[in-house]
């Protein structure tokens, strides 16, 4: 079943008097339980595409079907609802609330979903346990290492059992060893049946995915499966090529 189907999407920005085409007609579809990497140099439009896929932004033209529902012309609040229920974000800079502890950070999307305190807590504890942070639940982000912070962010993305997990350069602020641990965690999550979309400009990170979409100048340059998708633990220090 297709979770995401986008057709001929464009996104225009006005910078001063000039019009910039960040996306210039992109079409793709993503199935359930796919592990897709979106690659491209900076300025290729991959952040814009991610924002649109994540329902943070809406396309200028084109159609976006999310689980067969048209989302390209939804209101702010409807998009917020979709983000809350269906999308789990993992950011390069973690984006945790600094004043809330790990548990509260993970509970936050459940609060917005209107889930009762007791159930919320047990769900958040489960998610933190899944990412191996059961003993760090009451720590604030600044008391955690970078890798641990990213695990909290992943727990927060997982806790609502979303349809897709969108990770934007999830290893960008981590050293390569920690980065590899995080990628291993993503592979595990994928193996548990989740759909993952990974945005990166690092080839060796993208190679974890089973399918790699390469963007250039707002267009899809190549969209191919990656038969060599590396299994967890087969990390090599030097990127291929």
């Amino acid at each position: 079943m297709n979770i995401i189907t986008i057709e001929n999407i464009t996104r225009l920005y006005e910078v001063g008097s000039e019009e910039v085409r960040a996306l210039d007609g992109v079409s793709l579809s993503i199935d359930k339980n796919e592990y897709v990497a979106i690659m491209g140099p900076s300025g290729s439009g991959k952040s814009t595409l991610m924002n649109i896929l994540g329902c943070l932004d809406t396309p200028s033209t084109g159609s976006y079907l999310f689980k067969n529902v048209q989302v390209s012309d939804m209101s702010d609040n409807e998009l917020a609802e979709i983000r809350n229920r269906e999308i789990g974000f993992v950011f390069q800079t973690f984006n945790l609330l600094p004043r809330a502890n790990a548990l509260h950070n993970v509970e936050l999307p459940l609060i917005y979903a209107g889930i009762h305190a007791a159930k919320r807590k047990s769900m958040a504890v489960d998610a933190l346990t899944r990412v191996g942070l059961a003993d760090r639940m009451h720590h604030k982000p600044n008391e955690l290492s970078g890798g641990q912070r990213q695990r909290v962010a992943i727990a927060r993305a997982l806790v609502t059992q979303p349809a897709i997990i969108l990770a934007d350069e999830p290893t960008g602020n981590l050293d390569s060893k920690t980065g590899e641990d995080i990628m291993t965690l993503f592979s595990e999550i994928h193996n548990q049946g989740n759909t993952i979309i990974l945005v990166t400009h690092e080839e060796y990170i993208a190679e974890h995915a089973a399918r790699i979409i390469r963007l250039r100048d707002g267009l899809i340059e190549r969209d191919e499966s990656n038969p060599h998708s590396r299994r967890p633990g087969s990390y090599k220090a030097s990127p291929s090529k």
Partner: protein
Amino acid sequence: MNRYWFELKEGVLFSLKAIRVNKIRAMLTTLGIIIGICSVSLMSTAIKGMDKAFQEGISALGSDNIYVSKWPWFDDHEWWRIRRRPNITVQDFDKFQSLAKKPIAMAPTIISMCKLQYNDSYIESALITGTTAEYVKTTNFEFASGCFMTGIETDGARNVAVIGHDVSENLFKFVNPINQEIEMNGVKFKIVGVLKKMGSNLLGGFNPDNQVYIPLGSAYRYFVHRFRSIDIVVRAANTAMVKETAEEAEEVMRRVRSLKYNEENNFAVNQQEGLTSRFDKVVMVIKIVGFFITGLSLLVGAIGIMNIMFVSVKERTKEIGIRKAIGAKRRTILTQFLSEAALICLMGGLIGLGLAVLASIALDKVLPTSIQVDTILIAIFISLITGVVSGFIPAYSAAKMDPVDALRYE
């Protein structure tokens, strides 16, 4: 429904955290609200206190009374037209009494000051009222001990006195005053009655607590020059009868004075209604000035809150982005920042109320004040509303932020 509740709870809890992080900032911001709420509650308390004191003073004397006097209480006449008015004499009163049918009680009164002494205790200058036995029927006096002067005592101008509560407290600390003799300007008077505490001390002369009542004849003999004018106190049967009784009093007095139809009154019929309306005017002015000042300080406070909320929203742009990314709606963000502004104001309001309570305890010595529950509720309500109103624009700007821009903000 749950959702609103959880969002509100989350908003309030997180606001508390945010306020705790910036304690000093929140304190300074809320200073305007503290001052505003403190003054609004003190103001309404003081006005209530004055009102209460006034009402007590009035009701101690009887609110259905009419006073026939030489001069009007509130002088709207040119002084030269009324300065040659004749005195109201005891003879005038006797005629008046025989002609007036509507009043349930009438009494002549005359006022003076004198020194009171009992052994070593003394009062330098106390207000004394010379009157007749019937005077008590024009008041609502209650007696702590003894009773009012009898007709025999007043007609015979005996040296007897009825004293007010405060006079009794000051002169007789350990002795029962009844049958004790006090010296009034050196003349001995026997105490026959002591009043219960009646009014407050706001209205000075209108308060029976610091007065001494003696027979009219004795007053003339010892304290008052015989050419002084008396006042006639007239008690109407009830409040509804006050107007009629006053009209009759005017007519009767004209007959007593044998005035022709084209002659002006050469006396005045005073009513407490006049006093009350004067008092209300004064209170109204105090209210307007007070609430203007209060409103101004609340406005300044509100601007401070708005300013700091803008700063808070700007500082937390990233947080807003994060919250939106994981599913916060506009409403959620709005709730969060509104509750922060409201909480800051509420804290200011509570501090202001606390200060007002302390101040009113200190003020109680001058005015019978006490902060009422409705004042507290109004103060809390005003501070919450101020918070919500002043926080709205910043909170709205936060709520409609674009999540992509907000997330990118550093």
